[in-house]
C-alpha cells in the first residue's frame, strides 16, 4: 500500500468522521497497512463544513496530516470549492453528484460521481450515504478491499445498523465498479 493522502469532506451530519474512522480501521486493523486519521476539528465543524484526513502507508506514518491529497471524497459544494484546488494533478475525485457540481477536470484527475444520498434514501436511511461513498471509493480505486471494509464497518456501527451499512457499502462498491468497467469498455483507462 503506497503512501496515499485522502481528504473526506462534507457538512456535519453526513458521517464524514465515521467514514474516516472506518477507512482507517480497514487499513490499519483489517489490512496490513498504517492509517492515521485526523479531523479538522473546530467550532465551525458543528453543523458546518467537516473534513477528515486519512494518511495511508505501508510503513509507520510520521507526518500525520495530508500534504497533497491523492484522493478526495467530496459530499458538498462548499467542500468541493474549498478542497479541489489542492487535489494532486493525477489524483482522484469522488463526489456526491446531486450535491456537488464540479468544474471541468484539471490535468489527469479522474472524477467519479455517485447519487449517494438518493441511494441512501432508497435503502431507507439517508444516514448511510457515507458508507455508500466508502464503497464507491473501494469500487473505483481499489484502495480498500470489500472484506476488510465490511469487517471495519461491523466494528464501528451499532449492531442493528451493520446490515444496512453493509448494503450501503455494497451499493457504492457496485456502482463504482460499474463506472470503472464502463470506462474500460470505452477505452478511457486501461485495466
Amino acid at each position, binding site marked *: 500500500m503506497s503512501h496515499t493522502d485522502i481528504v473526506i469532506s462534507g457538512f456535519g451530519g453526513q458521517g464524514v468522521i465515521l467514514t474516516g474512522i472506518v477507512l482507517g480501521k480497514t487499513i490499519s486493523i483489517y489490512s496490513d497497512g498504517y492509517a492515521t*486519521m485526523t479531523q479538522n*476539528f473546530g467550532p465551525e465543524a458543528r453543523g458546518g463544513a467537516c473534513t477528515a484526513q486519512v494518511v495511508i502507508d505501508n510503513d509507520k506514518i510520521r507526518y500525520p496530516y495530508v500534504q497533497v491529497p491523492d484522493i478526495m471524497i467530496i459530499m458538498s459544494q462548499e467542500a468541493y470549492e474549498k478542497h479541489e484546488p489542492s487535489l494532486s494533478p493525477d489524483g482522484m475525485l469522488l463526489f456526491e453528484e446531486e450535491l456537488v457540481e464540479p468544474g471541468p477536470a484539471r490535468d489527469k484527475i479522474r472524477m467519479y460521481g455517485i447519487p449517494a444520498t438518493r441511494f441512501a434514501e432508497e435503502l431507507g436511511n439517508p444516514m448511510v450515504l457515507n458508507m455508500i461513498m466508502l464503497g464507491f471509493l473501494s469500487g473505483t480505486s481499489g484502495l480498500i478491499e470489500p472484506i476488510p471494509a465490511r469487517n471495519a464497518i461491523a466494528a464501528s456501527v451499532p449492531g442493528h445498523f451493520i446490515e444496512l451499512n453493509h448494503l450501503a457499502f455494497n451499493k457504492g462498491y457496485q456502482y463504482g465498479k460499474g463506472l470503472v468497467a464502463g470506462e474500460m469498455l470505452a477505452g478511457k483507462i486501461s485495466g
Partner: protein
Amino acid sequence: MVQADPVGVLTGTHYLDGDHAAAEGACSAGCRFFAGYPITPSTEVAERVALRFPLIGGTFIQMEDELASIAAVLGGSWGGLKSMTVTSGPGFSLMMENIGLGVMMEVPCVVINVQRGGPSTGLPTLPAQADMMQARWGSHGDYELIALSPNSPQECFDLTIESFNLSEQWRVPVLVMMDECIGHMTERVVIPEAGEIELVERRYTNLNPDDYLPYKPCEDLVPEMAPIGYGYRFHTTGLTHDERGYPSMNAETQQRCVGRLLDKINLNRDEIIHVDKHYLDDADIVVVSYGISSRVAIPAVEKARREGIKVGELRLVTVWPFPEKLIRELAGNVKAFIMPEINHGQVVLELERCAGGRAETRLVKHAGGWVHDPETIYEAIREAAK
C-alpha cells in the same frame, strides 16, 4: 511491580484517537478516581472515562471547574485510589496552585494536558506545545515534577500507564503533555493482555503508627505513605513542614523540605528519564524534539541523511526532568542542536543552557495552530550543516 487488573484492560487492537487512548491507559493503569471539567481539546478523555468507569468500578465526577477537579484528584489519591484529571491550557492555568500542593504534600496523581494554542483562549481546537514551561514553572515556588510527551495514540496509552507508575514511585504529580494533534489523531492502538501490563503500586508504611513520621524519607528520598483511617492520624499541609508533617515556617525547615522535594527527582534522574535516540553515533547535528514535533522531525532527518548530512535525532519522551547529562555529553561531540517546538522557544532554553555554548542551538519555532512542515526542519538542518 504487579500486573494490571484485567477488569480495566480492554485487550485488543483498536482504532483510537489519542484522547481515548489516554483514557484507556488510565483504566489499564488501575486509575479508579477521575475528577474533571470539560475543555477542548481534552474533553474526549473525560467522556470516555465517564463511559468506562461505571463498568470497571471507577468513580467519575464532573466538577464545577478545574480548581475543584485537581483538588478532588488530590483528595481521591489520599483516599487510596489512583486518581487523574485532564485539561487544556486555560484549565491547566487554573490547576497550577494545586499541582503545587500535590508536589508539596507528595500526592501521586496524573494530570493530562492536551495542549492547544494560547495565550488565553487562543486556539481551542488547534495544537501547540506552548505549555511546556508552565508545566515546569507554572506553580509558584521551587519544585520538580515529571512531564512526559507522547507522540502517538499508542503512546498516549502507554505513557499514561507509565505516568501512574512514576507518580506512585516518586510520590509526585506526573503530567502527560499531549497536544491537540495527538489528542485528535486516530491510529491503531494495541492494548496488551492485563498480565503484560506492569504497574507500580503505592508504597505504604509498615511501621506502627507510633513510629511513623509522614515525611521521613526512605533511601530514595521518597517518604512512605500511610492509608487514612488506620490509626496513623497524620497531618499533611501545603505549608513548609517537618518530618511530622507539622507546619514549621523557618529557613532551615524550608531548605530541608524543599531541598528534598527537588533532590528526590534530581538525584534520581537516571531512573526517571526516558529518551529515544536515532543515528546519534556519528551525528554532527542533533535534532532534539518531543511530542508531535518528534514525529514531524523524522522525515526531515531522514531526508538530510539521504543527502549525506550526519544528523541524528534525540526525542524526549520525558521532557521534565530534562536530560541535562545527556545534552552536556552530546554538546562536546556535535556541532549543533536543532529544536523544533510548537511555541516560540521554551524547552530550547533548557537545551541551550545545557549545551553551554559548546554546540550551537537553533530553534525552529512555530506559533501553534498546526505542526511544522518537515521541510522547514530539513532547511534548518541544511543551514546548520553549512
